[in-house]
């Protein structure tokens, strides 16, 4: 079992009651409260993604997708319940979704940018990637699989060749790494 790194982040639970009130007010149509809520959530989500997944281009997009999802799902929040489980269910889902999509995007880019292959092939994995806590909390094999395919942008075949394993074994490893990430996020959010 991978161990979680120690967290020295601010305690978001202190904000929970305020966010819950702001969301209840937003549900009633109060634009100012809603703007304040989204601003606070935007900062929190960006910091969360940066610290947990690392500072990559897709985390910015992911943060915005999370805000849009919060907007679209606002009618499903029950003000009698805690805000965090509701919010983190969305964050978790959108983050995993973004990581999954990242590989498809990178594979697509790889087909169109053969010139960059040499640079990528020579990249030292640990030096070139500064990951977030959650990715660092994965086992070395899972971390390697995620970094190669989702962050450095190797195709599954390239990553498999680099690790000297079969392509199907690489796919399984990536799938398990994502499942581990999801579990880590669930454990953290509860």
């Amino acid at each position, binding site marked *: 079992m991978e161990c979680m790194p120690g967290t020295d982040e601010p305690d978001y639970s202190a904000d929970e009651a305020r966010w819950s009130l702001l969301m209840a007010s937003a549900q009633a*149509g109060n634009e100012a409260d809603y703007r304040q809520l989204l601003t606070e959530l935007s900062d929190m989500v960006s910091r969360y993604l940066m610290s947990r997944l690392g500072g990559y281009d897709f985390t910015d997009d992911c943060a915005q997708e999370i805000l849009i999802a919060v907007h679209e799902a606002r009618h499903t929040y029950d003000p009698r319940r805690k805000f965090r489980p509701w919010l983190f269910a969305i964050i978790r889902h959108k983050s995993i979704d973004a990581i999954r999509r990242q590989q498809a995007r990178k594979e697509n880019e790889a087909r169109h940018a053969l010139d960059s292959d040499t640079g990528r092939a020579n990249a030292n994995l640990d030096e070139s990637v500064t990951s977030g806590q959650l990715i660092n909390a994965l086992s070395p094999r899972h971390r390697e699989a995620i970094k190669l395919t989702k962050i450095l942008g190797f195709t599954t075949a390239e990553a498999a060749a680099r690790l000297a394993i079969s392509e199907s074994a690489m796919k399984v490893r990536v799938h398990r790494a994502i499942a581990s990430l999801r579990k880590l996020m669930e454990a953290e959010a509860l």
Partner: protein
Amino acid sequence: MTKPGSLIDQLAGDLQPVKPVARRLGAGALLWLGLSAIYVMLATALMGPLRPGAFDQLLAHPRFLLECSLGVLALVILAQAAFRSAVPGGLSRRWVFIAAGLTLAWLLNYPFGLISPALEPSMLGKRPHCYLETLILALPPAMAAVYWQHRLFPLRPLQSAAAAGLAAGMIPALYMQVACMYAPGHILMWHILPGALVAILTPLALLGVFWCKQQPTG
């Protein structure tokens, strides 16, 4: 992507008052279950007679009553779980365990019934197409549940649809306890199995809808 500030402006500008639906989720699930049960009972009665003396058996045989009561309880929890799954963070692991445990406790009655049945197995009341009735009767409630789920915010729509399909499939499967012949082997094969099949058909139907929506129009 737009800058966070301008996105927030857009979203705040787009704000409309909404009713928090999650407050009424439990009641909504029960309403869906109640309406679906009434529909299944009416449609079953229209398609053919119920097993003679089935309701008297409920009173005369406590184990049969327990078996049916467990089924009703499992259905209530399954319906709640199906609707909760369409709300972010609404379906906790505890809910999943309770729903799975109760459904399993209900369904295990039938394999156990192969050794020691709650009622004397009999062909009395056999419906010629009970499997087809179970399957077809479950589809409208399943579709209604999926439609309702999509008015919420299902993060995993296919899993939510499967849960809705299972809940919907088990309604006619349970009602066949009194509408069709009683024999545990027959129940497992021709009532429960088609009911469970709806849990697979519903996400497949949803996939079909997604696929159709992605096709370019015109």
